[in-house]
């Protein structure tokens, strides 16, 4: 449970100022090839900087199973900047919202960090509290380098960063620290055992249901774990039916639309037909899947760590999430690495942020598996990211084309709890889907 949750929603959002975004748009128009080439140039430029000895402390959401990947990332930075005394503090959390809460409490208690790892669920909270530093001056100082990274960043991430960040015209978050969309990780062996062809990216809910019934009948395996996790278990079903929990501005709840109710009904149906383990369980979906007892699980980049650890990369192929009708969908969350206003080591901290946000750090993270897909197209298309990963891994990046930003208003931690609690009751059968989604609508509305 922890595994899934920790990685589930990914890193956060970023916010670029209008000026920066407009400037980058011009560069972005130069095209992908140019961007990739520029990114390669930035790699070349990434030599040790003329920095005085300093200390940088970093806090991130990471669990023990991800330690190797993070350590590789940190080692790359230490190698590049030996004069910087770098310390990293992991906070394993059940969700990104919970992680943000924990960091906030730590900061209030006097903890000193220079750089934070934040996901979409938490970015507005920290900016709202005024504890993170506006990066505009630092970006301007290294404009060329940042422009290169920005030009290589998926335009929708840049757009999301601008749209969903603080609206004071300042840049607190750079939207290139990693992101996750949801896709279907399909166990090829289970499909073969059931005598089924592998699905296509166009598969619908009906195809999914039919495959699940066949797999259950012929192999006894579950099709998919239906859960009450906001990013992993709820949003994929909503977005693949053209629904979401909130409107595009995250100002109005949209939980009781016919599409959202239909998504809840479908999720409940999977449980009723026992195509999913009963909700509320503590099973490890990766373990279950790798053992062949689960045909499909949803995930972004993070399952690759478990799949690699079990030498099961070849067992899996990644497809787009099944959708209802033409509504292809996925939630997306992205990472940001803001610098604390209170940091006494802004220059050193900025070097670390740049390292994480440009191709050098992204490449190291991608190679080691990481917990997120790169935001930089050049890295997402490189073998650093695609090697030793299931076929179809590139779709995790391409899903950005149609993904919906995970709604995370300032009180996102509370809305998330409400949404998960009500959805949990729906899939458990405590409340009917339509009544449940109406209740969710009321509760979320109160919090917005």
């Amino acid at each position: 449970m922890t595994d899934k949750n920790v990685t589930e929603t990914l890193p956060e959002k970023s916010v670029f100022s209008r000026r920066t975004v407009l400037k980058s748009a011009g560069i972005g128009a130069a095209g992908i090839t140019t961007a990739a080439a520029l990114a390669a140039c930035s790699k070349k430029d990434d030599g040790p900087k003329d920095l005085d000895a300093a200390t940088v402390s970093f806090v991130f959401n990471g669990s023990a199973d991800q330690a190797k990947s993070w350590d590789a990332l940190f080692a790359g930075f230490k190698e590049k900047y030996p004069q910087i005394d770098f310390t990293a503090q992991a906070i394993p959390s059940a969700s990104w919202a919970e992680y943000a809460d924990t960091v906030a409490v730590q900061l209030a208690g006097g903890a000193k960090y220079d750089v934070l790892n934040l996901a979409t669920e938490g970015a507005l909270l920290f900016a709202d509290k005024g504890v993170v530093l506006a990066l505009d001056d630092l970006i301007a100082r290294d404009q060329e380098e940042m422009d290169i990274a920005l030009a290589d960043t998926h335009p929708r991430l840049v757009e999301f960063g601008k749209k969903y960040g603080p609206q004071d015209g300042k840049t607190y978050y750079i939207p290139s620290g990693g992101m996750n969309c949801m896709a279907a990780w399909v166990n090829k062996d289970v499909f073969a055992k059931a005598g089924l062809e592998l699905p296509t990216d166009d598969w619908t809910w009906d195809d999914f249901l039919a495959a699940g019934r066949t797999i259950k009948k012929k192999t006894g395996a579950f099709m998919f774990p239906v859960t009450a996790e906001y990013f992993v278990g709820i949003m994929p079903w909503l977005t693949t039916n053209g629904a979401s929990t909130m409107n595009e501005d995250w100002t109005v709840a949209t939980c009781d639309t016919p599409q959202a109710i239909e998504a809840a009904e479908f999720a409940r149906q999977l449980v009723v037909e026992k195509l999913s383990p009963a909700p509320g369980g503590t099973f490890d979906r990766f373990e279950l899947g790798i053992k062949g007892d689960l045909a499909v699980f949803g995930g972004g980049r993070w399952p690759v760590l478990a799949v690699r650890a079990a030498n099961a990369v070849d067992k899996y192929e990644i497809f787009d999430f099944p959708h209802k009708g033409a509504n292809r969908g996925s939630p997306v969350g992205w990472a940001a690495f803001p610098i604390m206003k209170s940091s006494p080591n802004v220059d050193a901290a900025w070097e670390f942020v740049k390292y994480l946000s440009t191709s050098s750090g992204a490449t190291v993270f991608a190679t080691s598996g990481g917990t997120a897909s790169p935001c930089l197209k050049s890295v997402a298309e490189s073998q650093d990211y695609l090697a030793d990963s299931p076929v179809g891994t590139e779709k995790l990046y391409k899903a950005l084309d149609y993904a919906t930003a995970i709604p995370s208003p300032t009180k996102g931690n509370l809305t998330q709890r409400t949404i998960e609690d009500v959805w949990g009751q729906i899939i458990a059968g405590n409340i009917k889907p339509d009544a449940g989604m109406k209740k969710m609508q009321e509760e979320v509305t109160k919090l917005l």
Partner: protein
Amino acid sequence: MPLRKAKQKQERFTPFLFLSPAILFFCCFILFPLIGAFGYSLITWDFFTQPKFVGLDNYGKLFKDPIALEAVKNTFIFTIASIVTHVGLGLILAVAVNRRIPKFFAYIIRTVFFFPFLLSWSATSIIWSFGLDPTFGVIDFYAGKVGFPQATLISSTWALPTLIMIDLWKTLGFAFIVILAGIQAIPSEISEAARVDGASGLRLFWNITFPLCTPAIFFVSVTAFIGAFQIFEPMYIMTRGGPDNATLSIVQYLHMSAFRNFDIGYGAVISVAIFIVVLIVTLTQFKFAKRWVHEG
């Protein structure tokens, strides 16, 4: 003379020296936080921005908050169930073990029941979460086989009773051992004299054993109340207070208010309310204890 005076002064000071670690501990971890909580309850503060003095506004908010009332209701149900089950079953077990059963079995029973008490609530919650997994949980499976409800942690009807049962499993051993110690402290000549006078087993229990172990029962009921009223971990780990706030405890709501909603003032109000309730109930328990607790 001056030497004598100095010695007297030293003698007066010495007891405080010995008490100083306890006093220091009490001040740092109880008195100062308590005063702090009262102070925080008068302000509105979100950790980061400037606190604002709001007087008693936060207290007024508490009585109008339906979620707080639900949490209070859940907590009282949990607490009452906890006291009744711990005292009742603890007493039954203690009496049973105190009877003339082989020492080996008595030892095994004591160990089996007391061992869960040594586990942390986190470990207990995780173990039971696995056991009660509605698809793969061994306990859930066999509960279904014998006709008990399944998937109880996600049922708004059964989640709280399930947590009460888990609490009983974890902490019954403590009540049992304390009451057993109380029973074993009863002088054997009293029971023997009653037997010689022809007292039956039941009469022996009602007239000798129960009255003389009431101090132990009283102690168990007071500690059970204080512990149960402040329950937090199993709700937080196993059910997150759900489904539909069915297992939300008042301490968990305090945590939510202060550390999720960042409303420190309101969180402090809840903590003050908890303190007052625990204080009143405990004092009431002590007051009524004179009527039924045997004073040896």
